[in-house]
């Protein structure tokens, strides 16, 4: 069962051990060098989920915007279901369900890398987020923009690439950033199926310390995630400024 089952019991033990050894803030800083190298795993998993999720999300958005009733219903149904599912449940459903499903087709997937299951889970989830981001960005651009572009002689593809896409991108950017932050945070649950990312490593360190000073290590984890989220937010604000150069808005103030 790995970490999921033992987590609460080891936290309880940790608290009992902690009673004698009080809070020592120096552990917050000293655990950082041990944790930071494992951000690589976190980034790799999150990065691949973002790439696959964006692609899959684009397909879903096209389905939602298209004229095919069935495709639209399917895509909306998918988004609703995914919105209602806690990440941890989806993660375990994929972790146990995908190999069981593969068994029926004669494939043996029980000992592939856990990172694969994590990437599948968060790709599914990010696709649902992205499909809404892309759809709302596309719908925010007036139809007249496309019509005007075509009427001055651009081909439909050119019109999309040069007129619609740059404008929709500016609308989508902040939501894309929020989606990324959400993905990064939900990704912290990957330790529950045994992935050794920052959170997994933190739990290993705590176990190796006989569960003492757990609080300090959790605080340093919180600091790492907080800084990462602030950096993503900042980066997207800069990107938004860069891409909204040609944007015309009504200024009220």
């Amino acid at each position: 069962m790995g970490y999921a089952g033992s987590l609460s019991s080891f936290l309880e033990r940790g608290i009992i051990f902690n009673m004698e050894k009080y809070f020592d803030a120096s552990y917050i800083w000293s655990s950082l060098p041990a944790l930071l190298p494992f951000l690589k795993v976190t980034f790799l998993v999150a990065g691949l989920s973002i790439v696959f999720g964006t692609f899959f999300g684009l397909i879903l958005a096209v389905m939602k915007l298209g004229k095919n009733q069935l495709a639209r219903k399917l895509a909306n149904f998918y988004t609703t279901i995914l919105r209602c599912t806690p990440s941890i449940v989806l993660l375990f459903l994929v972790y146990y369900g995908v190999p069981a499903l593969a068994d029926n087709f004669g494939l043996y997937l029980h000992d592939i890398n856990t990172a694969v299951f994590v990437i599948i889970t968060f790709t599914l989830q990010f696709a649902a987020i992205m499909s809404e981001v892309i759809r709302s960005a596309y719908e925010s651009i007036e139809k007249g923009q496309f019509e005007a572009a075509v009427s001055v002689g651009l081909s439909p593809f050119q019109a999309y690439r040069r007129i619609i896409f740059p404008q929709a991108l500016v609308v989508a950017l902040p939501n894309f950033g929020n989606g990324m932050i959400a993905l990064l945070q939900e990704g912290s649950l990957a330790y529950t199926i045994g992935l050794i990312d920052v959170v997994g490593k933190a739990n290993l360190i705590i176990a190796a310390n006989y569960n003492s000073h757990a609080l300090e290590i959790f605080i340093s984890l919180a600091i790492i995630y907080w800084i990462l989220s602030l950096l993503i937010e900042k980066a997207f604000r800069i990107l938004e400024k860069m891409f909204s150069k040609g944007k015309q808005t009504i200024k009220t103030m």
Partner: protein
Amino acid sequence: MSEGLNYKFLVDTFFIALSGVPITLFVTAVALLVALPLGFLLALTRINQIPILNRFSQVYVSFVRGTPIIIQIFIVYASVPLILTAFVEKYNWNIQIYEINPIWYAFIVFSFSTTAILIEVFRSALSTVNKGQLEAAQAVGLTNFQAYRRIVIPQAMVVALPNICTATVNLIKATSLGYAMSLQEITLKAKVAANVGYNYVEAYLDIFLVYIILCSLVEFGFKLYEKRLRKYKYVSA
């Protein structure tokens, strides 16, 4: 697992998972009851730029939005007993710290995070209400409190409600992490049932179904309420 799904287990566990719903809803309700008024008050400090509280809310919101809930749970679950131990030793209280019901930790964590989310929800909702509305209400002789209660809040609520709905659904989903505090909610109950015969696929399918039903009902409820509130919607000429 290759023998296919165990349907009897699937059906039995569905009801076990369902029996975790009251705890999930209880935690959600308490978190919302704490977070709604507190979030609203702190949103007011942001809007009116009250010196220290404004800064505090800003950092608070940034922390909660910047850190995963599971890590907030870890921190609360590891720190609250430490703090309590210090108090118990100092004042000789008669509390068995390790026998505290985990639901209290759940109340703390989920109120803490939901308050931060609602601060942002109320802040953006209040800022959509035209300043002239408040001024006009004051001009006709309403007190500040009356003006907020009768004029500003109903209009802000129309804007805030969809976001409160999202926050509630996210809160219900987040309570699935209560297993880390051994909270007897949907996920933990079904998982424990699965531990006996390794029927994890069935158990997680059940959990999945229960959350979908629960969240759909909540969303439906909010939609109905939204319709009722729509009469307060400000229509610009």
